[in-house]
């Protein structure tokens, strides 16, 4: 299992087509872009992991405030260092592709927003999320007072079972009502 980095076999290609939402052209393009990230001697090895720093140089991710979270969520690395293999990279592109379903997209969005990986969005996660959205520097952040008001508003609206956190089903409940989500949760190479 796995692929040598320099070429992509025909059976591999059709397998990836079956397992992801990507078309043949997209997989080939992804492979081309991924190989560009590899160093010369890495190219001959199978299943190379590309460290997170090099992944983040992709222009598609460079200006995304959630780029580190995205890498961590899609990484299958045992050390949780956010490094990606080619297959992880395909997983990422598949979840962010046009044809991925709302359920897949909302599920991954939830995991991206769940900064501490504890399975719910609590106040801390929401605060980090809002900071990511408004910009990380001190002068772009909301004031603590505004932040408190905002988080109260969010929980008031979407925390249906009133346990102080937003869980996956509540999150999907909110997302499913937003027609904009599918079209904005997209990364195309």
């Amino acid at each position, binding site marked *: *299992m796995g692929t040598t980095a320099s070429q992509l076999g025909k059976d591999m290609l059709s397998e990836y087509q079956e*397992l*992801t939402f990507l*078309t043949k052209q997209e997989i080939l393009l992804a492979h081309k872009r991924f190989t560009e990230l590899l160093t010369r001697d890495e190219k001959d090895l199978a299943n190379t992991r590309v460290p997170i720093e090099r992944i983040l140089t992709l222009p*598609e991710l*460079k*200006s*995304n405030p*959630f780029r580190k979270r995205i890498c961590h969520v*899609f990484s*299958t690395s045992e050390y949780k260092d956010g490094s990606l293999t080619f297959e*992880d990279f*395909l*997983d990422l592109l*598949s979840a*962010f592709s046009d*044809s991925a379903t709302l359920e897949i997209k909302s599920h*991954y969005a939830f*995991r991206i927003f769940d900064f501490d*990986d*504890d*399975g719910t969005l*609590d106040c801390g996660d*929401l605060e980090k999320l*809002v900071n*990511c*959205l*408004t*910009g990380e520097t001190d002068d*772009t952040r*909301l004031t603590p007072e*505004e932040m408190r*008001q*905002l988080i109260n*508003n*969010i*929980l*008031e609206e*979407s925390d*249906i*079972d*009133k*346990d*102080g*956190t937003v869980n*996956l*089903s509540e*999150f999907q409940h*909110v*997302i499913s*009502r*937003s*027609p*904009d*989500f599918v079209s*904005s*949760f*997209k*990364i*195309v190479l």
Partner: protein
Amino acid sequence: MENKTVNFMRLLSEDSTHSTVSSDSCEYYQTEIFDLLPSIQASRPEQSRKPSEAYQDGPVPGEESIHGHLSSGPRDKAPTQPLRNMVICIQGKRSVRDRRKMQISDIGFWVSWRRSQSITMKRVWEQMGGALSGLLPWQHTLHAIEGRYGFGVKAYFVLLRYLVNLNLLHCALIFGFIVGPTIFYGRSKSSEPLKFGGNDSVLDFFLGSGYLDRSPVFYCFYTPGSLNMQCLNTPLLYLAGILTILFLTLILVVRRTTVGYKHTWMLGKQYSMNVSYKIFCGWDFTIQDPAAATLKHSFIRNDLKLFLEEQSFSLREAQRTLGQRVRLYLLRFFLNLLVLSLLGGAFYLIYFATNKSQDQGIPGERQWLVILVLQYLPPITISFVNLLLPHIFRKISSFEDYSFTMQVNATLVRSIFLKLASLGIYLFFIFKHLKDQSQCLENLFGREMYKLCIFNFLTAFCNAFFLNYPRKLLQEKYPSSLLAQLWGKQCFLVPFNVLDLVYIQTVSWVGVFYCPLLPLIGVVTLTATFYIQKFSVLRCCVAEQRMFRGSSSSVLFHFMLLLGLLMAVATLGFNLYQPREPACNHRFSCGPFGNGQNVFNVTGVCVDSLPSPAQSTLSYLNSSAFALPLILAEIIILTSYVSRGRANQKAIERLKDMLVMSSSDKRFLVKQHTTLLRRQRNPCRVRPAAIEENQRLPPES
């Protein structure tokens, strides 16, 4: 009963949002048993799921343990669910697939063959869908615009593309119903052949007179030819073509409006998920440009601040004193008077310009430029008014002390009113004027519509190339000059541009009866507009400071389009109805409806030729005896839908209550379990407390 549940809910929610959030719940979801709950397991990333795998994969323990942590667990509910729909990594999907293959071989050859067939079929469909969506024009451009300027601007371009498609459809219908039969069966013998020459000049293409007047562009061309059966003749086809266009458009636009409406308005308002949308769906992952990303950050920040401000604004509004309130209402009253007087002035100006343009003397006496200007005076006035007043309205609404969203909406509503009403008034005056002329009235009317279309396009063209582009150049070359600073950076004002589109489409709908090739002209001008606007957006504009939500604004756009369509239909109906009485005596007959025929009696001839049962059926369908049951049936259907909606509403409320209850039960049980566990594990730590308590108790008793 209901009161009780409501009270209960409120108690619970207050309790949980204020006191328990910080201390209690934190403790609650950090307990061990919380991690073992099936609902939590389902949402966990698969790596961290390893230790508890044995717990959750119940039914076939032998098979599951082989695949270890990679099994999809509770996610793999439906074995027919495509692999790509599962939220696991590729390696995980592979092992799931291996397992499934085993199942398939158990199931048998026939089922497996059918399944693979369905997969290939699905893939073929997907490919066809992909190829079809690739055929949609400008996909790439839209993508680029979306990436740099976000949804709002893209929504404008999507609307533009939709209008181009709509006009293409109109063109097909026109060719099928009107132009085709005329080409095939020829025109009436009295009509002269079409040729360019004599007094014709290039100017005619701007004025719609001369050569163009006799060409297929206008109504007059379509005189009845050899196709002259009782139920299939040129007038009937002409009428059928126009009616089909209007009905089809009505259905299409209503459908698009309601689809969007269903998505946003009802659901969004009813359950008020506004802030959660802004947070959870706020980031546009398609953005690649760092500058666009900073812009998006500031969009979101502004939007959130705006929301928070509006929340406190409504608080402040509730606390206003009586005196303040009276003063504010007086101010609003005067500002509304001002708006009304501005509108009145604008309408008078349009009336004046129309009069002036129709009153021109003998054409030979004046220079061609003066004629051109005079001819174009009404469109110029209308465009001028429509260009100026919305900006004034925007300024006025900022004094009214409304919340910001309300300001934008007020401006938009006033501008829509201005646009459509000014068009209506113009049409009305034209029609009054045209009545006492001896030429083909319909052609004259069509000519006015033609001029409006051409002029609007010319304005867009000049605006882009002679105003916006030099402005941008000036800013690039001399960024520090006074003029550049005075002008500031230009934004792409989505609402005003959409107003323009709606306006031009309304003109096209009004004019299609008199100028059947207007949709074709519309396709050409709209396509050109697309490229012009693309140029001015990508080249000249910076993104706006205010954010537009794609979906909700496109609902508004389509609603405006619908208003335009209704107005077009109303105007058309009014115009057709008007000359009915004096029709026979002095009207110069032209176009398809000659020989005393008109729009209203042309179907009568056909109906008369039908066999008597069909005739009586038709007359029954026409009568009020049929209308009454129809209305009754509609009322019954509506009532049933409304009551069903109410029942669903109640069920939703009840389910929410149940959810709160069961969640609090769960929380209670988890807490109880943890305390029990703790007591079991370190009894020594619990005991001192108990002893202490015991020690404290005796003296009291």
